[in-house]
C-alpha cells in the first residue's frame, strides 16, 4: 500500500509552498482583485520559468514530463495561495484538451507555448447563465469560421488561445481559435471573484480549426472536465486547508469572555467538521489523482467524487472561516473573503455540485466500478 505522493513530489510541494508564501501573499491576490490587472504577470512568468506550466506536458512538446501527479501537488499549492494566474484555464483545460484530442501539428503548434507560459489558453463553453447542454449552445462553426458569444470565459481577456464549444453540421465540436484576430471582440465581465478575471467573447466569423472530430465535442468536453475536476479538486483542498488554518489561528489568538474563542465548543466543533470535510475531500482527490495519472477507466467516477467533495469542503471552510472571524470576517480589509469568493468561483468552474452529483450516480449506474 503506497497511497501517497512520492518523496520527490512532496519535496516539489514544499518548494512550491515556500515560493508562493513569499511571492503570492494575500496582498498579491488583493492587488489583482482590486485592480483591472488581468492576472499577476510577473508571478506567471516565474512559475512558467520553474516549469510548473509544463509539468504534465510531455517533454517532446517542451514540458517537464512530471506527469499529472506532479500537476496535482502544484495545483494544491496554487489553490492554497489563491494564485491570481490563468493556470487552471491554460493548463487544466486548454492544454489538457489539446493533449487529449490535438493532431500532432496542433500539439506541436500550441503545447510548447502553453508549456512555456508564453501562450495562455482557455476553454470557452458557457453562453450566459444556465446549463450548457449541447443542444442549448448557439455558437457555430461553418467551415473554418466561428461565430457566437461566450460568457463567462475564464481569463478571456488575457488568453491568446481559446478552445470553443460550438455546433458543427455533425453536432457539437471544439474549435481552436487564435484570439488575436479581428473577428474576436472581448469585454471584461464582473464576477464574484475579481482576483480571477473573466470576459465575454464575441466571435464574428473568426478563423478557427477543429480540435477533434466535428461531432466529438461533448465526449471530449466531458473528458477534459473530468481531468480538470481532479486538478481543481486539489486547488480546492489547498484552499480549504488554508482557510481552516486561518480560522484555527484566529480562534487561538482572539479572546472573548476572557478566553480564546477556540476554547468554546461552538468553535471547536465547527472547525472539527471543517477538518472532516477537508480530509474526506483530500482522500477523494487522491483517488482522482491516481485515476488521472493512469488514465484509469475509473476516472469519470473518481473525478466526480473528487469534485463533489472538494466543492463542499472549500465552500464550507471558507464560509465558516468568516464566521469564526466574526465582524472582522466580513470586512473588505480582512482576507477571509478572498477565500470565500474563490471557493464559490471554483465550485462553478466546469459545473456545479448538482451536475457532478448526477454525473457521479450515472457512473454508478453504468460503470462496473466496484460499488
Amino acid at each position, binding site marked *: 500500500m503506497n497511497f501517497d505522493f512520492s518523496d520527490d513530489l512532496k519535496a516539489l510541494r514544499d518548494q512550491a509552498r515556500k515560493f508562493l508564501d513569499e511571492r503570492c501573499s494575500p496582498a498579491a491576490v488583493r492587488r489583482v482583485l482590486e485592480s483591472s490587472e488581468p492576472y499577476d504577470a510577473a508571478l506567471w512568468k516565474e512559475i512558467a520559468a520553474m516549469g510548473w506550466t509544463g509539468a504534465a506536458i510531455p517533454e517532446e512538446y517542451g514540458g517537464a514530463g512530471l506527469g499529472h501527479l506532479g500537476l496535482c501537488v502544484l495545483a494544491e499549492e496554487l489553490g492554497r495561495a489563491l494564485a491570481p494566474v490563468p493556470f487552471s484555464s491554460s493548463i487544466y483545460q486548454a492544454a489538457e484538451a489539446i493533449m487529449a484530442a490535438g493532431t500532432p501539428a496542433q500539439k506541436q503548434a500550441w503545447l510548447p507555448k502553453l508549456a512555456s507560459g508564453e501562450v495562455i489558453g482557455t476553454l470557452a463553453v458557457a453562453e450566459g447563465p444556465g446549463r450548457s447542454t449541447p443542444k442549448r449552445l448557439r455558437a457555430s462553426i461553418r467551415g473554418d469560421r466561428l461565430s457566437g458569444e461566450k460568457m463567462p470565459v475564464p481569463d478571456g481577456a488575457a488568453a491568446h488561445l481559446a478552445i470553443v464549444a460550438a455546433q458543427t453540421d455533425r453536432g457539437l465540436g471544439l474549435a481552436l481559435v487564435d484570439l488575436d484576430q479581428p473577428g474576436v471582440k472581448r469585454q471584461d465581465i464582473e464576477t464574484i471573484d475579481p482576483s480571477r478575471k473573466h470576459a465575454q467573447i464575441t466571435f464574428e466569423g473568426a478563423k478557427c480549426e477543429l480540435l477533434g472530430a466535428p461531432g466529438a465535442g461533448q465526449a471530449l468536453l466531458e473528458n477534459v472536465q473530468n481531468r480538470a475536476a481532479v486538478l481543481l479538486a486539489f486547488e480546492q483542498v489547498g484552499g480549504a486547508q488554508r482557510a481552516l488554518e486561518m480560522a484555527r489561528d484566529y480562534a487561538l489568538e482572539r479572546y472573548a469572555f476572557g478566553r480564546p474563542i477556540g476554547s468554546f465548543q461552538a468553535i471547536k466543533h465547527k472547525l472539527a467538521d471543517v477538518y472532516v470535510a477537508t480530509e474526506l475531500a483530500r482522500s477523494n482527490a487522491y483517488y482522482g489523482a491516481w485515476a488521472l495519472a493512469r488514465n484509469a477507466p475509473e476516472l469519470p467516477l473518481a473525478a466526480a467524487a473528487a469534485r463533489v467533495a472538494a466543492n463542499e469542503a472549500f465552500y464550507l471552510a471558507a464560509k465558516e472561516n468568516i*464566521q469564526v472571524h466574526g465582524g472582522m470576517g466580513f470586512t473588505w480589509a480582512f482576507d477571509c473573503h478572498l477565500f470565500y469568493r474563490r471557493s464559490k468561483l471554483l465550485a462553478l*468552474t466546469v459545473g456545479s455540485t448538482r451536475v457532478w452529483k*448526477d454525473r457521479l450516480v450515472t457512473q454508478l449506474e453504468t460503470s462496473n466500478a466496484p460499488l
Partner: protein
Amino acid sequence: MDFDDTTEEAEYRSQARAFLEKNAPRRDGANMVYRAGHADANFLAEGKAWQAKKATAGYAGITWSKDWGGQGGTAIQQVIYDQEEAQFGIPRGLFDIGLGMCVPTLCTWGTQEQRDRFAARALRGDEIWCQLFSEPAGGSDLAALRMSAVRDGDDWVINGQKIWTSGAHYSDWGVLVTRSDFGAKKHRGLTYFFLDMKSPGIEIRPIKQISGASHFNEVFFTDVRIPDSQRLGAVGEGWKVSLTTLMNERYTIGGRAGVDVDEVIALAREVELEDGPAMKNQGVRDKLADWYVMSRGLKYSHFRTMTALSRGDTPGPESSIGKLVIGNKLQSMAAFAMDLLEEGGVVSDPKYAPMSALFQQTLLNSPSSRIAGGSDEILRNIIAERVLGLPADIRVDKDLPFNEVPTGKG
C-alpha cells in the same frame, strides 16, 4: 383562530394607511432598496422631512409615553403601522437606532430638562442619534470594552475606538459606554454618556464590507471632552444603563430580508436544466420545500408573536429564532441559486446576471447577516439559556478586575 385585526386595530390600520396613501408613493422596484448605510445629503433631507410628517401625524414614538412626547400607544399599533409603511416607498433606517435605543435610554436615565431638549427633536427627525457600544476588543463580548473615560474637572476625557457604528457620519448625537475604572470587575467600572457627534477629537472612518458597501463605521476618540452633565446613570453603573439601551431595542417586524424562497422559486421557474425547468427537478423541489417551510414557519411564528402583542403580552427571546434561521437560509439559497446558473452563476454584473445579480449580491452580503447584531453562536446560546433554561457558559472573566482578565495580548 384568524388573521383579522380587532375592531380597534382595523380602525388604526385604516387611518395609518390613509395617512400613507396621502403622503407617500407605493413601494416598487425603484424605491425598494433604500439603505441608511450610505446616506447622501439628499437622502438625509428626504428622511428628515418624512420623519417630521410622521411626527405631526402622530406616527412617531407610537409606543412612547406621552410625557416623552410619544403617543402612549401599544406595541401592536407600532407593528400595524410598520406593516403598512412597509408597502410604501419612503426613506428608511435613519431613526430606528436613535428612537429605538438611544433616546429611550436618555429619557429613562436623564433629567426632565434633557427629555425636553432631546426627545421631541429626535421624534421630529431634527436630530439623528447613533449608538457607540462595540469595540475591536469586544464584539460578542460587549463588556470587554476598553475606551477610557478619565474625569477632569467638570468634564470627562475620552480616548479609544468604537466600531460597527451605523450612521456615525450623519448623526448629531450619540450614546457611549466607556471604562472609567480598569481596576474594577469587568461589568463594574463602566460609565455611560451621551455626546455631540461634532465634538472635537472624533474621527469617523467607514468600514468597507465584502459586498463593497459600507453600512458601519469605526469611530476614533482622541481626548474628546464630555461634560459630566451628559453622564447617564452613576459612575461605574454604565453596564446597567447599557442594558436599558439593549432592552429598548424596539420590537422590529421581521421584514423580508432581501431574498426569500419566493425569489428562488421565481428563478427555478425560469432556469432550464438538462431535463427541463429547474422547478420540475426533484432535487431542486426538495430544497425549495425546505426553504418554503422555514420561510412560512417564520412568518406564522411572527403572527403568533403579533397575537401576543395584540393581547398586550411581551414577546420573549423566542423571537431570536428568526435571525438565526434567516441568516443561514439566505446564504444557502444564494449559493444554490448560483449553482442553478452553472458556470454563468459567477457573473455578478446586473446587466447579465438574472434578477439583477440579486443572488450574487446576497452571497456576498449573507456572511454579515450571520454575524452582525448577534452571531449564530450567540443566538443559540440565548435560546439555550433564556428559552430552555440551560446554564450559562462557564465564565472565567466575571469576577476578575478588568485589567487582569486574559486577553491573549502579551
